[in-house]
């Protein structure tokens, strides 16, 4: 035994005698994880969070969370001698005098944008592949809470430098909070410690940003990952992959290297971004002052949908009822709309389970096309989100494309309602189309482009049948059917309790599963092949395979992998 091996064995023995770590190593060292690029999205979120922690600790060493006014002396020249809060002054100090300070600030900001982007795309992956299904519903909720905490972290951090841009963001928040019926004014005082902006908001946001929210995020990430280990990771469909197994590579060494290496890749790319792409140059905006505001100001991307929502709402919807003001023109876009969006995300897994009456565990992911209504709803949701985000930039769209701001706003107002409906419809049709294409492929094989002429003059195209892995991918799914419910009256003609509820659920279920494309069965495949004179697929050169007579590309189909035209006969 070499010295290193001896030292390692000694350490392991020491630890195991005191912690029993051997059991954990045995259990987890060779734990299998499936491999797919889309599984990296969640990893990006995790790693950018780690980068946020590292760069964040660096920044806290120099940031002063205080709104006390001081006269700033130092770089840049434009800010020299300006009266500003200590928060803003320390941000300038970090950027201009601390070596690597600006780099860390920019890495931190880019990492925050990437964190949210990774969370959102990770959620999209989970949604469209049905990874939220039993037993992972709880983890889906944990993920949504993490996303909301991510928004809170981003928002609280964005406001800390106390510059004009973020100060106006806080002012908008104040306006939104005041619109809440009954308690709005008190909520505003609760947040700002008095009237906006007061002297408390920066220290308070600092505590929220560096203690409260990160602690919650860390705890929930731990829970999120615990669930991943407990449930074992989902896997994409394919040969040998079932709901009863997990196929992939072992944690040690493959994922230690791959996932560990990927952390460095994510961090490296963020360092590259922080070094080369400037972001949030607060000294160009100046310290917060309630009077000035720049045109074309944009929040960070993950807040754009709220901004757009506020911009689109027509102002007529503010009402005075019994002397009290109800600002629906603020309440609906800033509270109700995001509330509805988040509620949809939270409720969806349970809704789908209810209309499917599916109690099984699912570990093999869906191909999005195989669940057309879910995919359609997801795309509709994204469409609404994107339209709101675009509306949040309507002034930039107007100036860049020289269009009327009012016209753009009206177009977005209409699109907000029409866009998702259209997106749902077209996505569902595309999914059904893709499923039919899959059936077509399974039944008749790949088009080879080889045209064959028979002795009696008929032309056909030779089709190459799918190999069994290709076929399995296209036939291995469930086409759920709408629920069947018991009749309104039982055998003795007594009205059944709960019939109406069942009926509603059935209607919903029909919405989900009325239109569907069933997977090809072996019998169908056999039938498709025997419509001709015989049914062979491969390896019988004297035989040829005529399709069922369905027209494909304007001609008859023939399935024959290796046969040349001269070997064929009818």
């Amino acid at each position, binding site marked *: 035994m070499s010295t290193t091996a001896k030292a390692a064995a000694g350490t392991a023995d020491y630890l195991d005698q005191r912690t029993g770590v051997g059991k954990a190593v045995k259990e987890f060292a060779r734990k299998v994880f499936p491999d797919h690029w889309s599984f990296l999205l969640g990893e990006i979120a995790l790693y950018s969070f780690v980068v946020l922690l590292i760069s964040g600790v660096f920044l806290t060493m120099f940031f002063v969370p205080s709104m006390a006014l001081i006269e700033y002396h130092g770089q840049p020249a434009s800010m020299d001698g300006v009266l500003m809060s200590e928060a803003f002054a320390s941000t300038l100090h970090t950027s201009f005098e601390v070596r690597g300070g600006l780099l860390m600030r920019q890495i931190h900001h880019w990492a925050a944008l990437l964190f949210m982007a990774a969370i959102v795309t990770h959620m999209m992956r989970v949604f469209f592949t049905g990874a939220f299904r039993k037993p992972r519903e709880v983890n889906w909720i944990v993920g949504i809470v993490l996303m909301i905490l991510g928004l809170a972290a981003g928002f609280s951090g964005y406001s800390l430098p106390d510059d004009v841009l973020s100060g106006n963001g806080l002012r908008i928040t104040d306006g939104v909070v005041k619109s809440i019926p009954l308690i709005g004014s008190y909520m505003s005082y609760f947040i700002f410690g008095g009237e906006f902006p007061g002297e408390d908001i920066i220290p308070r946001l600092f505590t929220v940003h560096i203690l409260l929210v990160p602690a919650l995020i860390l705890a929930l990430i731990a829970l999120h990952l615990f669930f991943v280990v407990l449930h074992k990771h989902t896997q994409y469909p394919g040969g040998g992959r079932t709901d009863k197994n997990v*196929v992939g590579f072992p944690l040690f060494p493959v994922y230690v290297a791959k996932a560990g290496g990927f952390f460095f890749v994510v961090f490296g790319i963020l360092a590259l971004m*922080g070094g080369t792409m400037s972001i949030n140059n607060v000294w160009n905006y100046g310290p917060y002052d309630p009077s000035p505001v720049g045109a074309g100001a944009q929040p960070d991307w993950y807040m754009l949908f709220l901004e757009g929502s*506020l911009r689109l709402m027509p102002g007529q*919807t503010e009402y005075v009822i019994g002397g009290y003001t109800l600002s629906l023109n603020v309440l609906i876009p800033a509270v109700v709309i995001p509330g509805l969006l988040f509620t949809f995300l939270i409720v969806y897994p349970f809704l789908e389970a209810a209309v499917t009456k599916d109690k099984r565990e699912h570990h093999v992911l869906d191909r999005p096309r195989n669940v057309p209504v879910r995919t359609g709803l997801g795309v509709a949701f994204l469409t609404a989100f994107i339209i709101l985000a675009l509306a949040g930039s309507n002034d930039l769209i107007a100036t860049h494309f020289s269009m009327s701001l009012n016209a753009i706003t009206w177009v977005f107002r209409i699109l907000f309602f029409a866009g998702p409906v259209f997106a749902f419809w077209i996505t569902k049709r595309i999914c059904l189309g893709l499923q*039919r294409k899959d059936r077509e492929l399974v039944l008749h094989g790949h088009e080879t482009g080889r045209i064959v002429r028979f002795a009696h003059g008929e032309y056909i195209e030779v089709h190459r049948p799918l190999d069994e892995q290709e076929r399995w991918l296209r036939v291995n799914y469930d086409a759920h059917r709408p629920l069947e419910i018991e009749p309104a009256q039982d055998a003795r003609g007594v009205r059944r309790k709960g019939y109406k509820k069942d009926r509603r659920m059935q209607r919903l279920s029909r919405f989900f599963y009325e239109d569907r494309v*069933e997977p090809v069965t072996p019998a169908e495949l056999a039938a498709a092949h025997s419509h001709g004179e015989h049914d062979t697929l491969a390896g019988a050169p004297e035989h040829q395979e005529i399709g069922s007579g369905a027209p494909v590309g304007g001609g008859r189909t023939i399935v024959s992998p290796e046969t040349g035209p001269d070997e064929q006969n009818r």
Partner: protein
Amino acid sequence: MSDHQHSSEVGTTSSNAPGAELERFDDPGLPEHKSRMADRDPKAAKRAERQIVVLFAISVIGTIASLIVYFAVPPGETTASVRLSTLALGLGMAFALLGIGVGAVHWAKTLMSDHEHVDERHEQRSSEEVRAEAVKALTDGAQDSGIGRRGVLKGAVISALALFPLTIAVPLIGSVGGDWNVSKFRHTRWERGMRLAIDPSGRPIKAADVTIGSAVHVIPDVSEEERLSHAWITEKAKAVVLLVRLDPRELKEAEDRVGWSYDGIVAYSKICTHVGCPVALYEQQTHHLLCPCHQSTFDVADGAKVVFGPAKRPLPQLPITVDDEGYLIAQDDFDEPVGPSYWERLK
């Protein structure tokens, strides 16, 4: 067959139907393993190893470079030199990190075994025996505690636990909102006779200085001491005003506001009635004021009424006149709360 319709019954496969398994294809099992270049050719493996070594070496060089840069490229005195230092440090760091990252991933993908392993999954649900034991553990525990028999005790425990957070919540809520006096929203720093001053210099404005078509950002004429105090920012957040001079013939004034303007000069609160952004963009031709945050548009010539966007109410008007020396002064404070709406605004 190819235009198989959704409601078609051609496929008899159904997950619900008994015997469905017979109607399904068999799982073909794991696809065949395809060996990689490095598996087949020792030379390729050696080459990959060299590449990985080079990548890790790049990381080391990146780290050394960033240390050199730390000393050699200080942030300096100008924005450009700060940028240069940031760029150099960032590049060194990026190479240090990417070398490790790309090297490790390349190692895993080319040299580590890529044979897939299969682990079994087990249902999350515990077995019936385990469940029974769990239920028994809980009932035993509950019995040991006697919680079921001692109703008063149960009530006392629940009450104590439910009430104790008040010891934290009450002091917190009592202090977190300052004095909780929300009626401050109603008043601004403006008062009768207070001069209008230019923001941010604080120089009072004479009516004669305001030319037709111009817009001036205005604050109350308070002492310099007050303007440099911290409380000022909160007062200013309510008191900022936009002053515009129009041709008096173009100005439409409501009956009850005749006399609030002076010779075509009108003053409106700059705080948007939507969510409170400063309404800062004035369009001279149309007399429109545009809020850059959410594009609420107000017509200055017509009582600052909303002509477009998410705001409902006109901007509050500051009644103005001139004093003996020709300086513009406020006749009084605003007669309504400025800024965004809130529940008890009209009470």
